[in-house]
C-alpha cells in the first residue's frame, strides 16, 4: 500500500469498482516501461511525430537584461504546441497495449484535450473529452480543434462547470466503462499510478535538458523552474534533477489576483491537505471541507489541487513553491515576445515571471533553466482582452 504514496500524499481514493482497474493499469504500466519494444515505440513517436528533441535555447537578450544565464526548454515547439503530447503518446500506447478501444480525457484550457484528440486520431481510437461548459465558452477555438480531430467534446454543466467538474465527470464515466475505456489524465494528479505514469512520460523534458546543458555549459544549472497547476510539465522538468542536490528546483503556482485576495490557484500557498480526484494532497478548500474554485488568468493552471509528488517535494524541502500574479505573468509574457520573438503560453509565463525575480539575486555566470511548457497562440485572445483592460476570467 505504501508504494502508492509520496510521503503522506497520493494514494488511491476511488470507488471500490475502480480498484481492480487501477491494479490492472499499474501492472500493465510496470510491464510496459520495462519492455524495450514499448520504449522504442514511445521514443519513435516522440521523435518522428512530436518533433523531439526540443531545443534548450539560450535566451541571449533576456540573459543580458537580467544579468544571468537564462535557458528556455522549448516544449512550445512540440506538435500541438505544448508538453501535454509527451504524456498522451505514452498513455495511448499503453491503452492500445491493454486492448482498450476508447479513450476519455478531461480538459481545462483544452491543451490536454487537443493532445488527446490528436493521439486518438493517430492511433484510431474513439475519443471523448469532458470539458466544463464555462471553459468551452472561454476556449472555443480549442473545442473546434478537438472536433476537427474527430473527438467528441462533452460539456459538463455540474458544479462550477470548470476543470475540476470535468475531471469528476471523466472519473464517473471511467467508473462505468473501464472495461473498454482508458482514462488519459493530463496532469500529474489522480489516483496512483497516474502521477507516476505522467512523471514517467514527461521526464523526457529533464532528461533532454540535462544532457543539453551539460553539452552547452559543461555543468548542471543552478536553478530549474517551471509553472505548476496540477504539475505535469514541472514534474517532467524536475524529474532528472531531483537527485542532483546542487540544483535548486522552483515550482511557480498561479497567484491570480494575489494569494491574499483569495482569488488564486496556489494550492500549496494556503492550501490544506485533503482528498480529491483520487489523491490526498494540498487543496483549496473552505471551512467545511468543500473544494474552492481556483482563479487564474491561465486556464491551464486553474486547478484547486496539485500533484501529490509536488506536495511531497515541498514538505521535504527538495523543491520550493512560489506564486506570481496574473499581472506579473502577463508582463513576463509580453517581455518574452518583445525580447526573444517567442509568444509563450500564459501558463509558462508564470515560470518566466519568477525567473526574472530570481535573476536579481543571481550572478552573471549562474544558470537558470526555465520550462517553456507551451506556446501562446491559444492565448492571444486573452492577451488582447487583458491589454484592453477587459475582464479575463470570472
Amino acid at each position, binding site marked *: 500500500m505504501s508504494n502508492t504514496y509520496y510521503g503522506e500524499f497520493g494514494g488511491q481514493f476511488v470507488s471500490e469498482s475502480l480498484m481492480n482497474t487501477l491494479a490492472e493499469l499499474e501492472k500493465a504500466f510496470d510491464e510496459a516501461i520495462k519492455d524495450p519494444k514499448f520504449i522504442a515505440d514511445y521514443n519513435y513517436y516522440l521523435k518522428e511525430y512530436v518533433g523531439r528533441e526540443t531545443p534548450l535555447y539560450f535566451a541571449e537578450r533576456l540573459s543580458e537584461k537580467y544579468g544571468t544565464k537564462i535557458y528556455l526548454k522549448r516544449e512550445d515547439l512540440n506538435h500541438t504546441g505544448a508538453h501535454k503530447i509527451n504524456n498522451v503518446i505514452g498513455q495511448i500506447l499503453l491503452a492500445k497495449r491493454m486492448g482498450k478501444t476508447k479513450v476519455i480525457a478531461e480538459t481545462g484550457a483544452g491543451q490536454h484535450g487537443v493532445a488527446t484528440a490528436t493521439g486518438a486520431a493517430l492511433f484510431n481510437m474513439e475519443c471523448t473529452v469532458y470539458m466544463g461548459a464555462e471553459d468551452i465558452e472561454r476556449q472555443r477555438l480549442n473545442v473546434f480543434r478537438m472536433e476537427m480531430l474527430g473527438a467528441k467534446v462533452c460539456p459538463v454543466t455540474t458544479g462550477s462547470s470548470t476543470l475540476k467538474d470535468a475531471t469528476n465527470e471523466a472519473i464517473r464515466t471511467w467508473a462505468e466503462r473501464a472495461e473498454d475505456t482508458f482514462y488519459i489524465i493530463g496532469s500529474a494528479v489522480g489516483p496512483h499510478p497516474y502521477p507516476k505514469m505522467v512523471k514517467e512520460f514527461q521526464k523526457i523534458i529533464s532528461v533532454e535538458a540535462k544532457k543539453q546543458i551539460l553539452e552547452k555549459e559543461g555543468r548542471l544549472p543552478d536553478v530549474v523552474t517551471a509553472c505548476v497547476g496540477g504539475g505535469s510539465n514541472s514534474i517532467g522538468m524536475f524529474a532528472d534533477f531531483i537527485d542532483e542536490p546542487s540544483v535548486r528546483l522552483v515550482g511557480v503556482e498561479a497567484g491570480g489576483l494575489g494569494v491574499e485576495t483569495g482569488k488564486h490557484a496556489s494550492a500549496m500557498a494556503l492550501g490544506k491537505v485533503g482528498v480529491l480526484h483520487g489523491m490526498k494532497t494540498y487543496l483549496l478548500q473552505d471551512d467545511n471541507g*468543500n473544494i474552492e474554485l481556483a482563479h487564474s488568468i491561465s486556464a491551464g493552471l486553474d486547478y484547486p489541487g496539485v500533484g501529490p509528488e509536488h506536495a511531497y517535494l515541498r514538505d521535504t524541502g527538495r523543491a520550493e513553491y512560489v506564486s506570481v500574479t496574473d499581472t506579473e505573468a502577463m508582463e513576463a509574457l509580453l517581455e518574452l515576445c518583445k525580447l526573444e520573438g517567442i509568444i509563450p503560453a500564459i501558463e509558462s509565463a508564470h515560470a518566466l515571471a519568477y525567473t526574472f525575480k530570481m535573476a536579481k539575486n543571481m550572478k552573471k555566470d549562474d544558470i537558470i533553466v526555465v520550462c517553456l511548457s507551451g506556446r501562446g497562440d491559444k492565448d492571444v485572445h486573452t492577451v488582447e482582452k487583458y491589454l484592453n483592460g477587459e475582464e479575463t476570467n470570472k
Partner: protein
Amino acid sequence: MNRIEKRLEELKQENKKAFITYTTAGLPDLQTTAKLIFAQEEAGADILEIGVPFSDPVADGPVIQNASYQAIQKGTTLTKIFDMVEGVRKEKCEVPIVFMMYYNTVYHYGLDAFAARCIECGVDGLIIPDLPFEEQGELKAVLAKNEASPILIQLVSPVSKQRVPMLLENARGFVYCVSQMGVTGKGANFHKDIREYLAAVKQTSAIPVMVGFGIRTAKDIEPFEDIVDGAIVGSNLLRILEESNYSVDAVKEYVSGFKKELNENK
C-alpha cells in the same frame, strides 16, 4: 449494541427484508430533513442514509449531484447536520442513521473529532464511497478506539471478484452491493452478471447483503430478491421529494409501500 446491527438482527428473526433510504441533508432545509427522518421511521424504513453534501460527489449521478449542490448553496454543513441528528435523537428517534459522505469532509473535520461527534450525536454507520478498503486504515484505527463508534460499511462492486473475501473479512453491519458500474441513479440497468455476483457475495458474507444504485421500486429487485437481504433507494426518493415539494405524506406512502411490497413478494 449498534442500532444497525440491532435492527438487522430483528429483521432476521422476523424473516423480513430491509428497506434502506437515502436523503441528502438540508433539502430544502435541515428542519425538513429532521421531519423526514421521523416520518420514514414511522413508515417502516429500517435504516436511513443521510447524505452529507460535498462539492465534488464523484460516485453520484445527476440527481444526487444536484441535490448536494443545492444543499451546499443553502448552507448545509457537517457541523449543522451533526446538530440536527443530535436533536432527533433527543426526541427519541431510534432508527439507525448512516452518514453517506466523501472522505474529504471527514478528513477536513479531523478524524478524532469526527468519530467523537458521531458517538455524541448517535450516528451508527458511515458509507464513504471514495474510501476503498486499502485507504481505510487511518479511519478504522480511530473508530476502533471506542466501541460506540459508527460502523464503516463496506461497499462491493460487480467487478470486486477476488477482492470480496478481503472486503468482507471484518465487515460489520451490512454489505452494500453496488448493482451496476458507474454512479447512482441511473435506473435498473443492472450489471449483466448481477445474480452470480450477488450470490457470490452472499455466500461469502456473514452479515446481511443489501443492494443499491438504480433501484426505484420493489419490483426492480425481483430478479434477485431471493438472494439479498434488502434494498437501498436514493435518487428516486430525492425525485419524489422534489416532485411533491418535500411532502411528508408522499414520502411515508412511498416508504411504507416499498417496505410492504418488499416483504410480500416472497
